[in-house]
């Protein structure tokens, strides 16, 4: 059967989500898929557009990658505008030619509405919709002092935030008597206005602009119908959106009276081969200007094309929870009490700046809607009551009263039905979460990875955590953060106890803060904490019995009880003389020799008693321990960099050596790997490391929390174009914050996935110093760097420490009788079980 052609017009959030959904179905194999995008950029997250001025790039905001399209055989044509649809011939036209389709999806989105005000064509009159718009706003802000946003809705306030972050004095001009007239009532709007004005944004309500003229003190003057005026250097229109439906209109599809492409419950237009989803579509006389309903349409259509006859779009919840300019705003369901018989309960604390309103049914049993301003902590509970029709408690007002007045605590996750929607961005229900937990997910990170819950807007993070914890607990999974039976504390708690109380031994810690004698869980964890805090030798008498065997003997135990040795080769750079020494030592002790993935050499098969002898030779030749045995920095892999490579733009080897020498020996909750690539070709594979550094023309880009191995994760771009000093300072801070806050044996990737607030939070802590701890983190790192010692050098020089390496303390000449060997490819290796000698 020959494939059918599916064409998608529009590559925005909804169009991209549709493709993600479709390729996950069997139907994907039936289609050749072509996507046309008017913008030159790959679909990106418009919800977080204002972050573009906070340092985010298109790459940060992008929904997917060009590689993803390639891997899924989707022909992506960006910057190629579709100019016509011929429904009779089933073709579309672009400047490049005509393309035939079997099924056509319109995901063209919307455009900003610019009110017909005289003078609105002035070059400093702008809109707020695309990254290009933001570039124009940024350009216009050069030399400007003030900026006005016309429109006090959700997007308008976002735009005001953007102007503020460009350093402008921001004003909001709204035609209605209050801000966010769709979501808020008069009291809520008034409180929001007050709060926003306190943040330095001037709000002008009930202002109708009559004309825009040249200003006297600024570039422009806005004249209002009440004979007042306002001068400003630039104007951003954000007065609502209009469906981008011109193509549909010219091809005579059924349209709404005020625009919008009419669709049925299957998201199909008046032409059975043409479908529409997102903000360009009109369903039941409604345009949905939020992303979640667009995603729901995308999922519906993907199911329809996959042959699901039941799939239907049945409207969407328009509840919203936002932080606008730092102020919490929430609006749920029938916020304006339009349901007949609806009653209101209001709580308005002007002192604290909290406003809450519940709209309840006539019989007082159901929550119909709600409005929150100033504090969204009640939002999740109220939303669940409203969405799931859960019966309200006897005294429903307790749901919005402050807790000191007998307010009810949050609705426990147990009270939610299986159908309760937890994550509306990715349509994940409580039942879905239970399903993946039953299938084996046993922590928050894996539930997120499996269901995508809380990876959209992130608004459901706290609720998701509660549900996961509660469901795990029900299944008997211990979600206690206690490290083991000896300490009723998490690793992070223990770290703080050790640091604050200046505790230097395990004995003191367990005597004062734990019980019993410890075990193989808490002892190595505490050893790591003690090492991070005080950096004493791991083989000091008090610390020896705490270490895992690999740390105790500073080598890696292999399956036959012998050890492997990995000397440090910083950045993978080694002189021929040193390489010869490695060969000579390996030959002398008949050690199996293999190159590691981290650009070093691993020597296998040394017995306990051989270790100090071997290290004496290696140290004499200038080698240091490589800490391959420790939960600590392993290697900093590098490409050859601009010293040799024709494409390199920075000295990646030099930086790798600097980093490796700086962080070597540092004890962490788990191993830490780094890499430095000398250009964007990324030969060092830095994005798969805990810390990845990639050279740019202007400095270094830093990626954090990547991982290879069992659960690969690309690192998150953390900061760009850093100087050498900035790079090191930033890594110092992130490493120390990880060391202090991660769980035991938690790699940075899982740490990041479980970090509340995620990447944004980490950026705030590290780049903006939101916790005020950066100086302390840097000082701590400086102390550790200053007290580094090569553990092996100290050990071989100390007869007491060397005693530990006797295989049998009463028979030094005795060889372990169970170690049996054979030869393979000219090297010695252990005999496998059952293998003849």
């Amino acid at each position, binding site marked *: 059967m020959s494939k059918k052609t599916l064409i998608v017009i529009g590559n925005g959030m909804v169009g991209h989500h549709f493709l993600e959904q479709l390729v996950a179905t069997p139907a994907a194999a039936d289609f050749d898929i072509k996507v046309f995008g008017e913008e030159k950029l790959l679909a990106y997250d418009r919800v977080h557009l204002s972050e573009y001025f906070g340092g985010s790039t298109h790459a940060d905001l992008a929904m997917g990658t060009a590689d993803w399209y390639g891997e899924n055989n989707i022909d992506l044509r960006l910057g190629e505008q579709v100019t016509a649809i011929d429904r009779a011939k089933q073709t579309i036209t672009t400047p490049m030619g005509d393309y035939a389709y079997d099924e056509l999806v319109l995901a063209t989105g919307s455009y900003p509405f610019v009110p017909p005000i005289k003078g609105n064509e002035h070059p400093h009159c702008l809109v707020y919709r695309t990254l290009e718009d933001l570039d124009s706003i940024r350009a216009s802000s050069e030399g400007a002092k003030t900026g006005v946003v016309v429109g006090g809705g959700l997007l308008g306030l976002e735009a005001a935030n953007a102007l503020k972050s460009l350093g402008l004095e921001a004003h909001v001009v709204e035609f209605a008597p209050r801000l966010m007239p769709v979501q808020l009532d008069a009291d809520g709007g008034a409180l929001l206005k007050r709060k926003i004005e306190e943040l330095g944004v001037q709000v002008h309500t009930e202002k109708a602009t009559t004309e825009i003229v040249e200003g006297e003190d600024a570039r422009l003057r806005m004249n209002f119908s009440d004979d007042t005026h306002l001068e400003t250097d630039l104007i951003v229109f954000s007065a609502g959106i209009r469906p981008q439906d011109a193509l549909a209109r010219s091809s005579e599809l059924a349209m709404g009276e005020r625009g919008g492409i009419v669709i049925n419950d299957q998201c199909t237009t008046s032409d059975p081969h043409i479908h529409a989803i997102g903000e360009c579509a009109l369903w039941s006389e409604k345009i949905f200007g939020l992303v979640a309903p667009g995603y729901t349409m995308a999922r519906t259509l993907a199911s329809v094309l996959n042959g699901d006859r039941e799939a239907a779009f049945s409207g969407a919840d328009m509840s919203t929870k936002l932080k606008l300019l730092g102020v919490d705003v929430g609006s749920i369901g029938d916020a304006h009490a339009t349901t007949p018989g609806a009653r209101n309960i209001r709580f308005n604390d002007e002192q604290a700046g909290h406003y809450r309103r519940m709209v309840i049914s006539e019989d007082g049993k159901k929550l119909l809607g709600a409005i929150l301003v100033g504090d969204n902590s009640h939002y999740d509970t109220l939303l669940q009551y409203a969405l799931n029709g859960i019966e309200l408690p006897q005294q429903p007002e307790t749901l919005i009263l402050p807790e000191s007045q007998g307010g009810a605590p949050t609705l426990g996750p147990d009270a939610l039905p299986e159908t309760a929607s937890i994550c509306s961005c990715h349509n994940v229900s409580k039942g879905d979460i239970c399903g993946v937990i039953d299938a084996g997910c046993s922590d928050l990170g894996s539930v997120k990875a499996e269901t995508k819950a809380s990876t959209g807007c992130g608004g459901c993070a706290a609720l998701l955590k509660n549900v996961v914890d509660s469901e795990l607990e029900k299944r008997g999974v211990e979600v206690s953060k206690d490290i083991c039976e000896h300490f009723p504390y998490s690793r992070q708690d223990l770290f703080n106890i050790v640091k604050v109380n200046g505790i230097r031994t395990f004995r003191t810690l367990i005597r004062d803060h734990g019980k019993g*004698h410890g075990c193989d869980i808490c002892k190595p964890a505490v050893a790591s904490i003690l090492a991070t805090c005080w950096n004493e030798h791991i083989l000091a008498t008090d610390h*020896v019995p705490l270490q895992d*065997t690999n740390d105790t003997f500073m080598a890696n135990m292999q*399956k036959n009880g012998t050890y492997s040795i990995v000397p440090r080769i910083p950045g993978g750079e080694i002189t021929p003389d040193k390489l010869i020494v490695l060969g000579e030592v390996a030959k002398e002790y008949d050690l199996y020799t293999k190159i590691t993935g981290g650009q070093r050499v691993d020597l296998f098969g040394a017995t306990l008693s051989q270790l100090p002898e071997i290290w004496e030779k290696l140290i004499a030749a200038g080698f240091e321990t490589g800490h391959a045995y420790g939960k600590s920095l392993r290697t900093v892999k590098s490409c050859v960099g601009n010293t040799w490579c024709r494409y390199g733009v920075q000295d990646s080897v030099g930086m790798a050596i600097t980093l490796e020498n700086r962080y070597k020996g540092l004890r962490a909750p788990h191993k830490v790997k780094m890499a430095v690539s000398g250009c964007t070709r990324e030969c060092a594979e830095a994005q798969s490391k805990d810390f990845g550094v990639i050279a740019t023309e202007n400095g270094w880009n830093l990626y954090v929390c990547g991982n290879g191995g069992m659960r690969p994760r690309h690192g998150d771009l953390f900061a760009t174009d850093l100087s050498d000093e900035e790079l090191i300072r930033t890594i110092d801070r992130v490493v120390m914050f990880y060391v202090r806050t991660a769980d035991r044996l938690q790699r940075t990737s899982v740490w990041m996935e479980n970090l509340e607030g995620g990447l944004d939070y980490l950026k705030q802590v590290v780049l903006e110093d939101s916790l005020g701890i950066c100086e302390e983190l840097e000082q701590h790192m400086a102390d550790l760097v200053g007290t580094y010692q090569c553990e092996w050098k100290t050990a071989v020089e100390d007869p007491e420490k060397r005693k530990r390496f*006797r295989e049998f303390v*009463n028979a030094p000449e005795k060889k372990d009788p*169970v170690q049996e060997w054979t030869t393979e490819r000219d090297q010695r290796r252990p005999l496998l079980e059952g293998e003849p000698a």
Partner: protein
Amino acid sequence: MKARTSWDVVCTVDDLVPESGVAVWTEDGPVAVFYLPHRLPALFAISHTDPFTGKNVLARGITGDLKGQPVVASPLYKQHFNLQSGQCLEDEEVAVKTYPVLLDGNNVRVEVPAANKESAAA
């Protein structure tokens, strides 16, 4: 009738590592001697051989207590063995051999099956 045994000196107090183990060679093969100074008794001796792999490594495991029992964790695959009974906590069908052990002045003695010599004590 009880088999003939001997209390062999395997090492001195100075050889022991507090809160940890050392391996000694005996007539009965490799034995791990643990010294836990904050417990009574403070000395334990079990086979040095990990029953799950047959490798001689148990003296290099981390010691501690689980639910009040003194234990060592195998450094290879982390199963726990009761230092008094030799019982594996994760698999009730597996146990390691245990040996009586005592401190005689500065010497550590382990009771092992007698080889070709007279038993020193019984």
